[in-house]
């Protein structure tokens, strides 16, 4: 649920990084935080367990400058990936305007990706939103591990498993090392703002 403030000429929109546990959602935000430190005036908020896993969410607000005369402020969130935190994921999705689905490229994680995407669709439906309508980008993460000889899912398989019906943009990325992390974020911001464009007069 984006907020358009015509007095300040400001838009606030919420983008959520969703995906299976240990897939790299928090790592995406940490990379963005380091990369754009000068544009981010606050600390990144994380609510973690003692085991360094996301308990509730991570939160990072970022100013991206002006579009059509409006200051655009994007609130980036992650959800906890662990299966047991389903109700928490649903809470974080409230009012979401755009989604990055961070899929784990590890061959052993094929099933978890599919189950997580199914849970995303179900949770969106609980807010009367459809995964077919909301701005969405896939990120196939951990592609750097190919160089280390670790078995990864071919991109064609990931596309077939996750994106064959949705047909949304996707990026092969490494949240840890950086390739395509910023591009993923830029793409979802463009799609999200584009979806609000007709309200920006």
């Amino acid at each position, binding site marked *: *649920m*984006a*907020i*358009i*403030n*015509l*007095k300040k000429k400001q838009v*606030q929109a*919420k983008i959520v990084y969703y995906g299976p546990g240990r897939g790299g959602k928090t790592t995406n935000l940490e990379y963005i935080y380091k990369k754009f430190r000068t544009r981010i005036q*606050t*600390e990144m*908020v994380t609510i973690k367990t003692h085991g360094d896993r996301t308990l*509730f*969410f991570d*939160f990072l*607000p970022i100013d991206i400058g002006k579009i059509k005369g409006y200051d655009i*402020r994007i*609130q980036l*969130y992650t959800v906890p990936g662990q299966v047991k935190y389903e*109700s*928490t994921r649903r*809470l*974080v999705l*409230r*009012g*979401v305007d755009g989604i990055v689905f961070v899929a784990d490229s590890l061959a052993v994680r094929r099933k978890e990706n599919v189950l997580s995407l199914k849970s995303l669709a179900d949770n969106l439906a609980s*807010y*009367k*939103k459809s995964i*077919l*309508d*909301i*701005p*969405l980008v896939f990120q196939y993460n951990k592609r750097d591990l190919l160089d280390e000889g670790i078995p990864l899912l071919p991109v064609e398989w990931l596309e077939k498993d996750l994106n064959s*019906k*949705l*047909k*949304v943009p996707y990026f092969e990325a490494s949240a840890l090392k950086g390739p395509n992390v910023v591009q993923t974020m830029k793409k979802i911001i463009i*799609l999200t703002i*584009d*979806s*609000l464009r*007709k*309200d920006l007069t």
Partner: protein
Amino acid sequence: MDKRYTSDAEGQKTYIFTPGQLSEIEAVLAEELLDVGVHSVTLIDMAGNIISTLDDGENKHDLYSLAALAAGNFGAVSTMAGLVGEDEFSLLFHKGKKENIHFNKVTDEFLLITIFGKELSLGFLRLKVAEATDKLMGLLKPGS
């Protein structure tokens, strides 16, 4: 399958606030709360976005992080209420040594966060928040 983006379909609502509407909201927050001595007052939506915020100029908090956490906290407490068979818990309040935070649902979509010190009693604060909430409900109705 083509994707369509609609900002006004059910469940996809975008809230647009006009300068006049925001001025009226700010007037309510100033008269009912800031003038009686709260440190800051912020109206947010349940997604964690800030609609309007006013402070006494002396206390600077990271309000964007606070809004995100408050929306999450409120959602978590509402879910807990459901688990024990309550519709909602009516009082959401955190007491500190110097600062206290009070949360109040305005409508299903909006939440009022008030930060105040020990010079204000919780009872008086709740009374003023209730008065402000009544006025804000009128201003936040769709089409108002």
